[in-house]
């Protein structure tokens, strides 16, 4: 059942996001092209400043492309966030809730399907923006193909990793811990949003406003708790600073500790959301 829920959720989200992804990639290619045309033109030009019509038009083209690119990148992030909010609010707490909450599925399955699809879509949005930046850099470089060849050169990478192993022998573990932190951290923030909307749903009216209030309140509680732990960990570093590899130990401890905190946040927010939608559901 969870798989089926995710299937419809992906369909619903991708309907809006995939056109944006295509627009971002297309615009970054166009922008990259606009930067790469006439790259050597200035060098070969006799005059220091070219006032010809072609050059001015090209400048205009570059300007417009850069602006369009910037706009579409902003749209990508704003839309991803808005859609994640909207899929939960409209898909569960408004009229569509009448369909979803009468399906033979448990509320936790509904909530989980929302979280999984939102997470995957955020990751996709990040990947698309990375690809687009990569395309832009390629366009701005003087010899993109040569750079690209170097980028995919195995020897360069093996040199890089050899150096990395010398300087930071534990980099693999750091990377692993960091990726885990990003994943659980994303889920924790997603479910903080969901829990806030569920808490807002308890109000009789002004539910959206109450959701915003709930989000601010939970954020304040979180930063307060985080602050307390920060103070304690500062004291513990003071005591451990005499050890040889204190820095490394501290970094590991910090990463693992953040992972644990994020998992706790995620679980608490998930339970709040699930309990409210199971026991206190009251669709308008």
């Amino acid at each position, binding site marked *: *059942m969870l798989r*089926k829920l995710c*299937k*419809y959720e992906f*369909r*619903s989200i991708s*309907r809006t996001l995939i056109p944006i992804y295509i627009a971002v990639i297309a615009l970054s290619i166009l922008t990259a092209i606009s930067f790469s045309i006439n790259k050597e033109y200035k060098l070969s030009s006799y005059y220091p400043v070219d006032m010809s019509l072609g050059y001015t038009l090209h400048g205009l083209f570059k300007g417009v492309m850069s602006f369009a690119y910037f706009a579409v990148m902003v749209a990508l992030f704003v839309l991803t966030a808005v859609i994640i909010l909207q899929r939960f609010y409209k*898909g569960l707490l408004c*009229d*569509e*809730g*009448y*369909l979803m*909450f*009468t*399906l*033979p*599925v*448990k509320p936790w399955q509904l909530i989980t399907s929302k979280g999984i699809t939102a997470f995957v879509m955020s990751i996709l949005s990040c990947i698309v923006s990375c690809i687009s930046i990569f395309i832009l850099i390629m366009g701005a470089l003087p010899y993109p193909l040569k750079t690209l060849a170097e980028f995919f050169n195995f020897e360069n990478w093996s040199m890089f990793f050899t150096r990395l192993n010398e300087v930071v022998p534990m980099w693999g573990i750091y990377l692993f811990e960091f990726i885990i932190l990003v994943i659980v951290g994303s889920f924790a923030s997603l479910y903080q949003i969901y829990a806030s909307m569920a808490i807002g749903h308890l109000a*009789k009216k002004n539910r959206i406003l109450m959701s915003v209030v709930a989000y601010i309140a939970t954020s304040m509680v979180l930063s307060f708790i985080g602050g307390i732990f920060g103070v304690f960990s500062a004291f513990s570093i003071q005591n451990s600073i005499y050890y040889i590899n204190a820095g490394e130990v501290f970094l590991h401890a910090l990463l693992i500790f953040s992972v644990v905190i994020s998992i706790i946040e995620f679980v608490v927010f998930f339970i709040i959301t699930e309990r409210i939608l*199971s*026991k*206190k*559901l*009251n*669709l308008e």
Partner: protein
Amino acid sequence: MNNILVSARSLTKTYQHITALNNINLEIGSGKIVGLLGPNGSGKTTFIKLLCGLLQPTSGVLTVDGKNIGTQTKSVISYLPDRMFIADWFKACDLMEFFADFYSDFDKNKAMEMLAALGIAPNDKIKTMSKGTKEKIQLAMIMSRKAKLYLLDEPIAGVDPAARDFILNTILTNYNEEGTVIISTHLISDIERVLDEAIFLQNGNIVRYDTVDNIREQEGKSVDQLFREIFAYGM
């Protein structure tokens, strides 16, 4: 043989300080068409929402087919709310796929036939349909299931008389005869001819629950007339 499909014992639902259902006790059997009758705010929608699990009772016990309300009862209940509940970006075929995916008792052929009768092509988008067509396509989906309990909340409110006939005929010709249909409405004269039983709700209380034949025999009047008497203002 246990023929009781819906059973409510001391069922109460309060919202903050408003009592929507007050200590309801009733049993509804299988294979019947039951009218849930009462003026606005009498608790009809609350009762239906409790049955399909959209609300949790404040106190009391409610069972469908001997089970507490949960995923098992949801899989045998076909519910038509009093509003649009399908995402408007769906196409008619997406909607059928959705119902077939989640409800094992969904009959896709039957749904196709009903859509064809309505003149809806599988690739038509819900968004482009008129309000009346949207209501009909929802009803077609609901009635294409071979459910044990159909819950229809105000299915004929706000539609023209021709559409009203279409809706009632669709219900009558398509419901699972071993199942029960509960129709909530305040438009009784239109619906009276199809009812086997009638439940009269007033301010969260059941004021009468009887078969339509009994009402006619004992009172010597139609359900509609009885309704007008029970819920008369300022008499």
